[in-house]
């Protein structure tokens, strides 16, 4: 085909594109991912027994705020990386700072605690399943994020996939707080973080292959 003919074809249908399409799509994906994780929690894991009471406590919201902020960092990074010339340095730095602050505080508490309590603080009752559960809850959101990204123009597939995973993982980990009764910062800082970063690693692996266009 001649290039002029192609241009005629493309220009024949210049449907208006509303501003802010990229962030709006990811906001939609966040809602879908959170709902999917919620359905999984309700149908598969069940909510924690003391949910109503826990919601009046500080730790419940600290956990939620931490993982939600990791999700926000992922969202912010995606909003840049979905564009061909996008650079996500600030967003990734923000995520790293949130992570370092929370994990640092958690380990500070842990070191200051009585040595005989340390094991329980770190392992809780669910360390074996925590990261795995978060990863599982995040899968629908990760798939939706990657699907949306395929229609955009990321030029760094692995990094974009990682951001997609951190985004989906952050959302899922926040919903997971409805099920998980662990309440030490060092537990959350270790196992929740591992779940979110694990989802990020999975996103990077899949993204390297799925985000080519």
């Amino acid at each position, binding site marked *: 085909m001649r290039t002029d003919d192609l241009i005629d074809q*493309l220009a024949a249908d*210049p449907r208006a594109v509303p501003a802010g399409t*990229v962030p709006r799509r990811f906001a939609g994906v966040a809602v879908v991912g959170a709902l999917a994780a919620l359905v999984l929690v309700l149908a598969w894991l069940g909510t924690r027994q003391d949910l109503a009471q826990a919601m009046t406590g500080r730790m419940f919201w600290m956990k939620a705020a931490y993982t939600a902020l990791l999700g926000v960092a992922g969202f912010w990074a995606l909003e840049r990386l979905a*564009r*061909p*010339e996008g650079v996500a340095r600030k967003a990734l730095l923000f995520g790293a700072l949130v992570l370092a602050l929370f994990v640092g505080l958690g380990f500070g508490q842990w070191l200051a605690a009585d040595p005989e309590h340390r094991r329980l603080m770190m392992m809780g009752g669910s360390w074996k399943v925590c990261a795995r559960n978060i990863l599982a809850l995040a899968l629908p959101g990760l798939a939706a994020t990657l699907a949306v990204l395929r229609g*955009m*123009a990321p030029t760094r597939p692995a990094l974009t996939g990682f951001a997609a995973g951190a985004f989906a993982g952050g959302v899922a980990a926040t919903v997971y707080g409805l099920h998980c009764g662990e309440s030490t910062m060092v537990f959350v800082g270790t196992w929740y973080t591992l779940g979110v970063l694990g989802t990020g690693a999975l996103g990077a692996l899949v993204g390297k292959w799925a985000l080519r266009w």
Partner: protein
Amino acid sequence: MTETEAALKALMLLGLDGDAPAYRLLLSQLGGRLRVYFERRMRDAPGDVEDLVQETLMAVHTRRATYDRAQPFTPWAFALARYKLIDHWRRRKVRAAVPIDDYVEVLAAYAPEPGSAMDLDRALETLPERQRRLVRDVKIEGLSLAQAGERAGVSEGAAKVALHRALKSLGERMRGRADG
């Protein structure tokens, strides 16, 4: 170069709002520059240049929602071109580093054939000084309408109307010259 950016960006914004003639003009203007960009980098495979121009134009069209209106247009468009070029080499098993911002030299050196396609820079130059400054303040320097209006000594509303007129007459000038 900065004037090319301003003119292409103005056309892109009109195109995103559904202005078909402006959008058509954008694609053909960009196409000429993409051709030069790829020609310079593919001396060993000149037969593939036109394919890459077309692939990039398709990407500009199908992925135009990823253009952020607050950002300059040419870095966005040439990032798509760069990605297509790297992809092209990857499929041929060549690994090569492509600088991110070397398209700037193409924009600087680009000269349309005399008498054929109109020169964007020149079209911008034919605008009255006030309009040209308004386009530059808002589209290049990223001032708000209120700030640009203040610079020009008019209200925000007046600046908005004037900018709209400037973009419209820019499009008309270039179309007029293209047809003539």
